């Protein structure tokens, strides 16, 4: 009969090695999160500077007071630019969403990044609005207020509806999505501006819906703005 034995030191050594492996996984994870946020930050800054350049150009060209022909040329120029920026913003939004999906919403660096993105969105919205007001561009603007934390099922539903219209209309629809769960002066400004009391809320130009807006309602609103590419019979 043998006395069953085991090497306590092996158990301790394995525990220490496992802890080391585990910690290195965490350190590498943190490192990659840092790289990801840096990448997204640089993307935001790059699009941001594009928007700022356009805003400056817009004021230099002084659209108001020009002849109709001069105004048309300038407007074509800015419309083209805003569509280009809009594409980049779309890519950026997708990238931020991928990051959120895989890293959650709690990371400090992410919160800073998101706040910066919200500031950027505010400026992009202001610029788009200015172009639309001055040039009457063939696009509609929707502002969407949502929240990731705590979870909001209606916000997800609203996202699905708006995403559908974005896919249908492409560059004819600009959607600016503001995360009300982020501590950002820009979000607060927008909420105060439109008197947003709950999420989801949707703003069509100046019309505010402090509730979920169905596909039919969105279609009706967009049809009333005479946006090309929508089947508006019966709306």
């Amino acid at each position, binding site marked *: 009969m043998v006395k069953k034995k085991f090497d306590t030191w092996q158990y301790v050594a*394995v525990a220490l090695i*496992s802890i080391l492996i585990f910690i290195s*996984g965490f350190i590498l*994870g943190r490192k990659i999160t840092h790289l*990801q946020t840096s990448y997204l930050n640089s993307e935001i800054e790059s699009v941001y500077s594009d928007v700022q350049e356009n805003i400056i150009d817009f004021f230099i060209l002084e659209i108001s007071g020009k002849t109709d022909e001069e105004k048309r040329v300038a407007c074509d120029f800015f419309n083209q630019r805003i569509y280009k920026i809009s594409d980049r913003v779309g*890519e950026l939004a997708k990238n931020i969403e991928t990051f959120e999906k895989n890293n959650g919403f709690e990371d400090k660096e992410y919160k800073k990044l998101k706040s910066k993105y919200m500031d950027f969105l505010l400026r992009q919205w202001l610029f788009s609005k200015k172009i639309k007001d001055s040039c009457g561009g063939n696009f509609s603007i929707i502002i969407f207020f949502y929240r990731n934390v705590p979870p909001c099922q209606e916000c997800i539903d609203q996202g699905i*509806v708006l995403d559908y219209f974005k896919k249908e209309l492409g560059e004819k629809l600009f959607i600016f999505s503001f995360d009300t769960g982020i501590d950002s002066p820009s979000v607060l400004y927008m909420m105060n501006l439109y008197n947003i009391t709950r999420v989801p809320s949707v703003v069509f130009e100046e019309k505010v819906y402090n509730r979920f807006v169905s596909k039919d309602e969105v279609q009706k609103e967009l049809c009333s703005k005479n946006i090309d590419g929508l089947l508006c019979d019966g709306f």
Partner: protein
Amino acid sequence: MVTNTIFFILYFIVIYILTFYLITFLKYRKKFHFIPKVSHYPKVSLIIPAYNEEDSIARTLDSVLALDYPKDKLEIIVVNDGSTDNTAKIVEKYVKNNGVILINKPNGGKGNALNVGISVSTGEFIATLDADSMVAPNSLKYLIGYFKDKDVGAVTSAIKVFEPKNFLQRMQFIEYTYSIFLRKIWGFLNSQSVTPGPLSVFRADVIKKLGGFDENNLTEDQEIALRIHCAGYKIENCILSETYTFAPSNFKSLWKQRLRWYRGTLRNFIRYRHMFLNRKFGNLGVFVLPSIVMLIFSLFISLAKMIFDFYDSIYLSVKSVFLVGINFYMPEFSISPILTNFFLSINVHSFLLSFMFVGAAFMLYLSYKFSKEYIGSRSVLDLLIFIFFFQLLYIVFWGSAIIYELMRIKAVTRGKW
């Protein structure tokens, strides 16, 4: 947050288990191919229980007769467990020409057949061999040397899949090769929880003292191993003692086999629950048995996560249909967004999972190396399929075994189906 915590705990446990095995390997790496020298050859009774084995019994007996072991020290006993085919007729030829002992008895299951064989055996050692397995010429000689240590109650061999032909058999070939390495590691830890049917050798006085095999057990080869441990004996393994077995070639037979294995394991684990986390049983009680349960548990946690994610995506799709109807959009393919998406998808989980993958793949490599198997280009593809997909089948087998046990669906012992 809760899900993350559960997964991090599981990752740590799996990393601990893998590290434990790899450290054990490093500790004993020079002894992997060690075989104790044999000064004299004791008498061995080799018992082959057979039930409807007309397709394989001749090949099994031929391999046994080719064993490099003194013929006067080898007693070959075939127990025909009520076969309804030509098994008895085939064995009778070997009785006439080679002195094989044939016992014909009514069907009573594998455990019963082995006990009948033990009752007529005269050897100092008892070897058991499944009737669908073949032994390499040196296999028995290599195993016997381990009994020089009086504390050794049993010794197991290295089981390989015989000529894997189809995909399912190739997957089992990988699984068996992995088991060869693990069984040796368990041997070093004195923690083998199974003395498999395809060639294990027992000290006759020990097995008789313990009352032979449990006749009503679904996995009697596991039960006897646990009983040997409880009696305070060691179970060794010899990686160079090779045995070849036929692996199920279709899903139905594999399903039947695994359901019996896993249901048997569940029953034995419940029966021998006092061994779990019990220092008295050394590494087996403190580490190996709990780690098997933890790995099964982690399979189910992974399954729960997969089901949850699947449900989530289905729910979103259905919700989307309700909200905006059915729409199809052609996805845009370009490399840059895919790479960006991949880069942004990496997180702590990815690293920890990668570490686990590297550890498991390294163990698989060691398994091939130490069982002297060649990894060809086809094997690499098979290995990848095994690691990423085939292992999911274990969830199905274990899940079904648990459900069957909970629902008390009647189980059949070996040789009775």
